[in-house]
């Protein structure tokens, strides 16, 4: 059953065995597993329930519908754009479908440094396998690569760098190229069309357009959550309260600590909201004069270069280079320059450009704080992180030059352009401070990390907040560090672990 906040009778009062807040990868999976085990489950989501037929493939309509703050959310100093989903399905609705199992090297590190034997590779492998079956994860055939991704592949291969096609949770993908605006064809196997319908088929009730603002606790027990029903214009139209024996928070690494902190929950580690990892990403483009690259066509992320990744290849730069494209509103802001000269140049070259996202595994975290009715994201690229990001930019530019590009450019202000390998030194000291570089985060992680010690970790090894008997987290907040690869499967895998522990409690 679906009860929309814009239509529900207010005030809404619900009793259930379990309330799950957030319907992205973690929340939807936990809701489905518990509903299938016979629990009455309320799955609550602030955003709307948007079906494939309603996806219009236009930024102007879909960004407000599917993203927090219409995709305009930023860190407090404006240095990084924070993109995350706000609809049934969460960020799985708007991601690029990339499915990496958490690299073994990282799982070993997490198990070792945070006392987490449950995340050892042999324990996680069957969880990933189960999730992959539901998500229909499959290899991308090289014949499906678009020209944009082929340019990155060609450059990397000419330089002898390791790379591969992405595994994706796609089923009969047409390659329309609008993944970031929601899949209009149900090809992307988001949680909205997998775990959520599995949950409702098993008896769970979905409550979209309902914003939870407080976790209710009595002593060491959570007793429910409360918030507001939202109208179609996102304005509150009445109150909503969900009383439950078990409370699971899965709003993502920004919204989850925001909700828990504003609820005043007990956290003796002092780490709630801290250890925010963002995988800061910037773009480098290569220009191929006279060729129709048309980066916006086809599967957007098909090829990546792993050569400089620590989690995959033990390279100290710790960056992953991923072929990528974005629709004009998003991609245009990264192109440097001013006025008519810039406009005319961009118009002339737009379809000759290949683009790659340089994804940094950040080593210096930020934090989330409570603002006036909103989360505040504090994040600043450290000198060490900036240095490694420069390596990623330079290597991407090098790959494009090797692939035959006439020039490569970074998303810096003012712009940096290179036309030969000798020019690559320009990246050595390219400014990476606020307002000097276009930075985005598509992956928010940490802020309620798992760990075996209550004095330093927010959640115990099963995802339960240490100070409570029945208050759990099941999303990317649990990550002890940045994953170094696209985190979708890691979230699902950890959520599966949380669900197992909840079911084992009886």
């Amino acid at each position, binding site marked *: 059953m679906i009860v929309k906040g814009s239509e529900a009778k207010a005030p809404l009062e619900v009793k259930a065995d379990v309330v799950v807040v957030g319907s992205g990868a973690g929340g939807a999976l936990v809701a489905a597993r518990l509903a299938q085990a016979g629990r009455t489950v309320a799955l609550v989501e602030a955003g709307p329930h948007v079906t494939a037929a309603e996806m219009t*493939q236009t930024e102007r309509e879909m960004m407000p519908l599917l993203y927090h703050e219409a995709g305009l959310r930023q860190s407090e100093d404006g240095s990084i754009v924070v993109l995350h989903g706000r609809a049934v399905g969460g960020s799985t609705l708007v991601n690029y479908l990339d499915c990496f199992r958490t690299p073994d090297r990282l799982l070993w590190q997490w198990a070792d440094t945070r006392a987490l034997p449950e995340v050892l590779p042999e324990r996680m492998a069957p969880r990933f396998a189960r999730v992959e079956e539901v998500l229909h994860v499959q290899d991308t055939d090289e014949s499906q690569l678009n020209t944009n991704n082929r340019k990155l592949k060609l450059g990397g291969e000419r330089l002898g760098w390791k790379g591969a096609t992405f595994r994706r949770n796609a089923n009969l993908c047409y390659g*329309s190229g609008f993944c970031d605006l929601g899949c209009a*064809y149900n090809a992307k196997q988001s949680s*909205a069309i997998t775990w959520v319908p599995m949950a409702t088929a098993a008896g769970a009730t979905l409550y979209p357009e309902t914003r939870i603002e407080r976790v209710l606790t009595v002593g060491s027990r959570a007793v429910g959550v409360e918030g507001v029903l939202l109208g179609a214009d996102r304005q509150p139209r009445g109150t909503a309260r969900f009383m439950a024996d078990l409370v699971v928070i899965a709003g993502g690494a920004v919204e989850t600590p925001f909700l828990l902190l504003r609820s005043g929950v007990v956290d003796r580690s002092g780490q709630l909201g801290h250890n925010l990892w963002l995988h800061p990403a910037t773009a480098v483009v290569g220009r191929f004069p006279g060729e129709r690259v*048309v980066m916006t066509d086809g599967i957007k992320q098909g090829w990546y270069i792993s050569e400089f990744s620590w989690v995959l290849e033990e390279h100290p730069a710790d960056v992953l280079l991923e072929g990528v494209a974005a629709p004009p509103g998003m991609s245009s802001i990264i192109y440097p320059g001013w006025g008519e000269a810039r406009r005319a140049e961009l*118009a002339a070259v737009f*379809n000759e450009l290949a683009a790659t996202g340089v994804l940094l595994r950040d080593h210096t975290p930020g934090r989330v704080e409570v603002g006036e*009715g909103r989360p505040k994201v504090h994040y600043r690229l450290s000198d060490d992180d900036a240095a490694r990001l420069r390596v990623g930019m330079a290597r991407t530019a090098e790959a494009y030059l090797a692939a035959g590009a006439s020039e490569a450019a970074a998303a810096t202000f003012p712009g940096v352009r290179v036309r030969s390998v000798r020019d690559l030194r320009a990246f050595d000291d390219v400014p990476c401070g606020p*307002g000097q570089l276009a930075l985005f985060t598509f992956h928010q992680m940490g802020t309620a990390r798992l760990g075996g010690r209550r004095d330093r970790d927010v959640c115990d090894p099963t995802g339960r907040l240490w100070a409570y008997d029945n208050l759990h987290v099941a999303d990317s907040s649990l990550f002890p560090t940045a994953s170094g690869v696209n985190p979708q499967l890691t979230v699902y895998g950890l959520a599966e672990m949380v669900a197992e522990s909840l079911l084992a409690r009886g």
Partner: protein
Amino acid sequence: MLAVPPELRAAVPPAKARFDDDDRAILAALGRATFGEGADALDLPDAVQTMVAWLDDERQGLVTLLPGLFDELTRVLVPTGARWLDLDPEAREAALVDWETSALAFRRQVLQGLRQLLLAAAYVNPATFAQLGYAGPWKGRIEVPVHPPRFGPAS
């Protein structure tokens, strides 16, 4: 063009903070300096106002301060002695470069915040698609069937 029931589209929330006439004049001029020819036809001040309405309430107030801040601080911090809006086009561009390359992080951030809003507002407008050679949505152009969800619809 799009076979989507209007009631399913997102309704713009009521704005918690609005640009005044001075702000709109600054945004219009900045739009021309940022986007180039054709900016006026895109009505960028209106488009930016709509985008700002999607922000969290507190941030709407902060963002609506940016145009006035930029205009006035140009008089104080850039060796022009005049508000940005009062400069001739050449001096305006020089002032933009001065903001962009400033050693003060907050100046660069103010400028980039405005730039991002204006460019995003311009390029999400379908009127700009053709000049980029961007074909736009498949829907209405390339018809392919929607797959039935493998697990049925949520219901």
